[in-house]
């Protein structure tokens, strides 16, 4: 059974989805969702154990040898990403029960969990596949189920948010498939490793450069790289809380992986970063994201929307690390992938607890909530500190490596920009602290109880992980460093 690990990673959630439709019962579907999420976590850990130390797993689907058949290729990068997705899934699945009961109509619960299982299968499939078109199929599977999950939100604006995300996401995926098509026309193969071997002969032809452009724009739409982030604030603000937490922590990170996989393993880093000004372009957009999104976040009235804009800014940090195109820069970007997943996942889970008790999470409605819901508020403060990058949280680790990578290149002004944008994060985190702790609670807020344990425990697990991995960075930096090494090894 261990030799089938790569396919089990995808097949377990994929088989669970139709089973949930047949069960037609919300509670049973939830139990299946938890079982599936924990199983994928076990499989991801097993995969990580097998490829640590530079190993590579190649799994031929249908027993057709690789260039002809679809290949699932797992190395340090894939295993790292599959681990992130399954950790978040395992935590959020437990949380989902109470949150979904409050926010989704009862007759739709089993459909919600079906979509969640399909989304998980799609994201894990993107992580482990080694075939370009298979990647597109899984990208669309995860995206389509995401649109449904977002549109299941309570507020009617969730429908419009889901629709807007559908239009932009489909344009992005179609751009991606145009890029893959052009690469297929030029190299004659869809297998990523085979494409990498055949590409050097045709690198300077116009279709290949056009393919690079299409793939970059398509994935940037999915990544919510500024200025293609317009779908993100609405989608995160109006979706059900569990969905926001799951998506904020996984969907954009997986798109970062796709970008890196194509830039380094298929195109070979030098074509992209030295022959073309991609590093400068990404740098400009990352800095714009960091500053503009953080500034817009300061002026939001809805707490979920504020943290959604904060997500756009944090994605800017990840792409900043990528644009620095060195081993340290890549490590910084990948470390922030993990750290941001933990931080944002925890924050949105805690906000979901508030949403369960109050309804919408607007600043005017949560005055003085620090006294009524102490654990939740303190957790949000800790998460906010991680967003700022205070030492002893994971945010600090990412910012540290980003600054290191910038100084390595001699770019003092980038390091200065990282620190300055963190000060902007202080402003919007302080808004929450001020409203939660320094305002008098009205009658409604004083009557609130703390969030239920089934929701508080998973959220605090992630917050505790934020602090733990901020102090003991062996696993995160080690994993990211190994992934960065693996990517650079394939670079030419």
């Amino acid at each position, binding site marked *: 059974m261990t030799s*089938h690990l790569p*396919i089990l990673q995808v*097949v377990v959630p*994929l*088989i669970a*989805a*139709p*089973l949930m*439709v*047949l069960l*037609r019962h919300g509670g049973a579907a939830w139990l299946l969702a938890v079982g599936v999420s924990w199983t994928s976590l076990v499989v991801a850990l097993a995969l990580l154990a097998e490829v640590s130390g530079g190993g590579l797993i190649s*799994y*031929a*689907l*249908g*027993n057709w040898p690789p260039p002809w058949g679809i290949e699932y290729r797992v190395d340090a990068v894939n295993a790292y990403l599959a681990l992130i997705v399954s950790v978040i899934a395992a935590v959020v699945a437990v949380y989902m029960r109470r949150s979904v009961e409050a926010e989704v109509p009862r007759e739709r619960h089993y459909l919600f969990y079906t979509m969640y299982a399909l989304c998980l299968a799609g994201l894990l499939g993107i992580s482990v596949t080694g075939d370009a078109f298979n990647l597109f199929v899984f990208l669309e599977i995860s995206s389509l189920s995401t649109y449904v999950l977002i549109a299941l939100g309570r507020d009617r604006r969730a429908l419009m948010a889901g629709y807007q995300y559908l239009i932009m996401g489909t344009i992005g995926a179609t751009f991606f498939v145009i890029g893959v098509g052009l690469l297929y026309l030029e190299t004659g193969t869809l297998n990523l490793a085979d494409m990498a071997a055949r590409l050097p002969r045709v690198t300077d032809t116009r279709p290949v450069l056009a393919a690079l452009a299409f793939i970059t724009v398509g994935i940037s739409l999915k990544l919510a790289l500024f200025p293609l982030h317009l779908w993100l604030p609405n989608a995160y603000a109006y979706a059900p809380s569990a969905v926001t937490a799951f998506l904020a922590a996984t969907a954009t990170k997986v798109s970062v992986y796709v970008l890196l996989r194509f830039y380094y393993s298929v195109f070979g880093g030098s074509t992209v970063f030295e022959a073309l000004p991609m590093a400068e372009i990404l740098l400009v957009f990352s800095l714009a994201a960091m500053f503009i999104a953080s500034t817009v976040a300061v002026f939001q009235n809805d707490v979920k929307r504020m943290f959604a804009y904060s997500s756009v800014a944090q994605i800017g940090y990840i792409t900043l690390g990528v644009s620095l195109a060195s081993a340290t820069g890549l490590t910084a970007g990948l470390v922030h992938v993990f750290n941001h997943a933990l931080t944002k996942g925890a924050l949105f889970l805690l906000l979901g607890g508030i949403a369960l008790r109050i309804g919408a999470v607007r600043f005017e409605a949560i005055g003085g909530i620090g006294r009524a819901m102490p654990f939740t508020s303190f957790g949000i403060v800790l998460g906010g500190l991680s967003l700022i990058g205070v030492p002893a949280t994971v945010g600090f680790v990412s910012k540290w490596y980003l600054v290191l990578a910038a100084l390595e290149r001699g770019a003092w002004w980038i390091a200065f920009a990282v620190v300055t944008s963190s000060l902007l994060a202080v402003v919007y985190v302080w808004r929450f602290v001020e409203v939660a702790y320094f305002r008098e609670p009205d009658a409604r807020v004083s009557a609130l109880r703390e969030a239920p344990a089934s929701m508080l425990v998973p959220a605090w697990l992630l917050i505790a992980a934020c602090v733990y991995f901020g102090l003991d960075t062996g696993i995160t930096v080690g994993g990211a460093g190994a992934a960065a090494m693996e990517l650079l090894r394939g670079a030419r």
Partner: protein
Amino acid sequence: MRDYLVLRVIAKLMIAFMLVFALYVQFHGDFGPGGGFQAGVIAAAAIIFYAIIYGLPAARTVVPDWLAETMVAAGVLLYASVGVAGILLGGNYLDYFVLHADPVEGQHRGIFWVEVGVFITVAGVMLKIFYLFAGRPGEEEEGK
């Protein structure tokens, strides 16, 4: 539209042929254009044709809601099970070579069952989409 005689008679003639054509397309997918997706859509089109002429409640007695939903899930499970069967018989996932002593016959078998799964799912999905869209209460219609 049950009152229009010409439509009703033609529908009665055509629906049977449409269903047979769907099965034809399904089973000749290896030799010519066709396969599960196309056949599923044609089969669903036949039922939808019936629903348009005789009304949605009549179609719901032929293919109830729960049946359409079960078809959606059952087809996907069938497809995934063929893959798991490949693992259980010693090969990789979706390995058709091990499904029979003769690898070519195994390929034939694997493709056949996979296409049946696709047929069931696609017919169920198309029908379910039609039921959901057509079954919503509209504001302007007055029982046309």
